């Protein structure tokens, strides 16, 4: 049922407080509510931190309990946690949310236009396939073709929220 555990070396994401948004490694457990925590590569000094503000990630480092900062840093860099974190969906979602909040009025307009164009293309293809399907359906053939193209369209949705909708527009126009 539970997959991520509080253990020595568990990398946690701080959700609120002065260090909100940073990653730390759990170095030691103080008591039921607090842990000794250290984030040498993310700018968090070694300190006690309550579990409540930590959210566990999938990453675990290997170092003994109460290891000094140098060891934590070595382990962190060996595992390349910063890059791995940036590659996770969690981090990407956070980034996308930040970008969306920073959108100016002009950006919102551009995104609206890009979305509209994209949806039109999708609809267009759908209609084409529906037509095909209805024709072939009359000839008693199974319409498995529409499903394949829908799956291709979905991975494009995640790129939607980027601030460069124009480049996507160009891609879609080429389609």
């Amino acid at each position, binding site marked *: 049922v539970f997959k991520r555990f509080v253990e020595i070396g568990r990398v946690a994401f701080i959700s609120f407080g002065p260090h909100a948004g940073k990653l730390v490694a759990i170095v030691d457990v103080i008591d039921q509510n607090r842990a000794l925590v250290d984030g040498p590569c993310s700018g968090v000094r070694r300190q006690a931190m309550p579990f409540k503000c930590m959210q566990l990630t999938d990453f675990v480092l290997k170092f003994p309990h109460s290891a000094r900062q140098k060891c934590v840093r070595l382990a962190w860099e060996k595992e390349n946690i910063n890059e791995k974190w940036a590659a996770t969906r969690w981090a990407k979602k956070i980034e996308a949310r930040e970008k969306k909040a920073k959108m100016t*009025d*002009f950006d919102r*307009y551009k995104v609206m*236009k890009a979305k509209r164009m994209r949806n039109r293309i999708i609809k267009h293809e759908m209609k084409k396939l529906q037509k095909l399907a209805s024709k072939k359906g009359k000839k008693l053939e199974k319409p498995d073709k529409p499903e394949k193209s829908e799956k291709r369209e979905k991975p494009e949705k995640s790129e939607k929220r980027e601030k460069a909708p*124009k480049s996507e527009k160009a891609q879609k126009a080429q389609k």
Partner: protein
Amino acid sequence: MAGEKKPGEKAPSEKKPGKKKTGEKKPAEQKSIQKAAGDKKRGRKHHASRNPVLARGIGRYSRSAMYARKALYKRKYTAPETKIEKKKREKPRATITKPVGGDKNGGSRVVKIRKMPRYYPTEDVPRKLLSHGKKPFCQHKRRLRASITPGTVLILLTGRHRGKRVVFLKQLDTGLLLVTGPLVINRVPLRRAHQKFVIATSTKVDISGVKIPKHLTDAYFKKKRLRKPKHQEGEIFDTEKEKYELTEQRKADQKAVDAQILARIKKVPQLRGYLRSTFCLSNGVYPHKLVF
């Protein structure tokens, strides 16, 4: 001994002004001969101080005694009269002669131009208390938000063009903002907008070289009201200019300004479409959370 001292004292005191004199003469001579001649005309030899020193900062004679000793009663100079003083000195005409009709009236009368008041009120108007800092509107300080610079795209919030995105040109003397659609993009002409009823976006068009004609002032844009009450009851409310008429000058000005701005708008991709669109709020969109 006393006698010897005095000439001794006087000599060094005379030397100093003597030095000064020669010092003054030399640069004068170096500059031009004419200047030296001019100096010579007026008071070529500067006299030593006529006020012997008793102690440092204290002279032997008083101010009035010195006045007499220096013969300043003979030397009174005034600066040449300036134009403003001359104008002040010119007295306005007090009377005027007007022709008078009738046979035995003598043809003309001398009439005062500014007459005495024909009525004095029983009680004088009480003196108003002093106030400070109450300036008329024309002298008020005009402020402009830092987010609004020439070329900024603004969103109009009130008026018939509400929700439209518009390009800001400059601030006029009354503090209102001069703004244009441009007309071909969103049907907003050269118009004034109030700073308070406008959202400034962070999108800016580069208007650095655009020349805005100088005659576009507040008086140009002010609404015209014709006031000719003929003291008749009927139709007073009709004849006022309700219908706005587009003049040729407005069209010409609009074209002149818009031509320059359109060129710059075309350079930015999608800006034209942006200016054509209107701003609106929908579900989940909160203005305090939006970054403009």
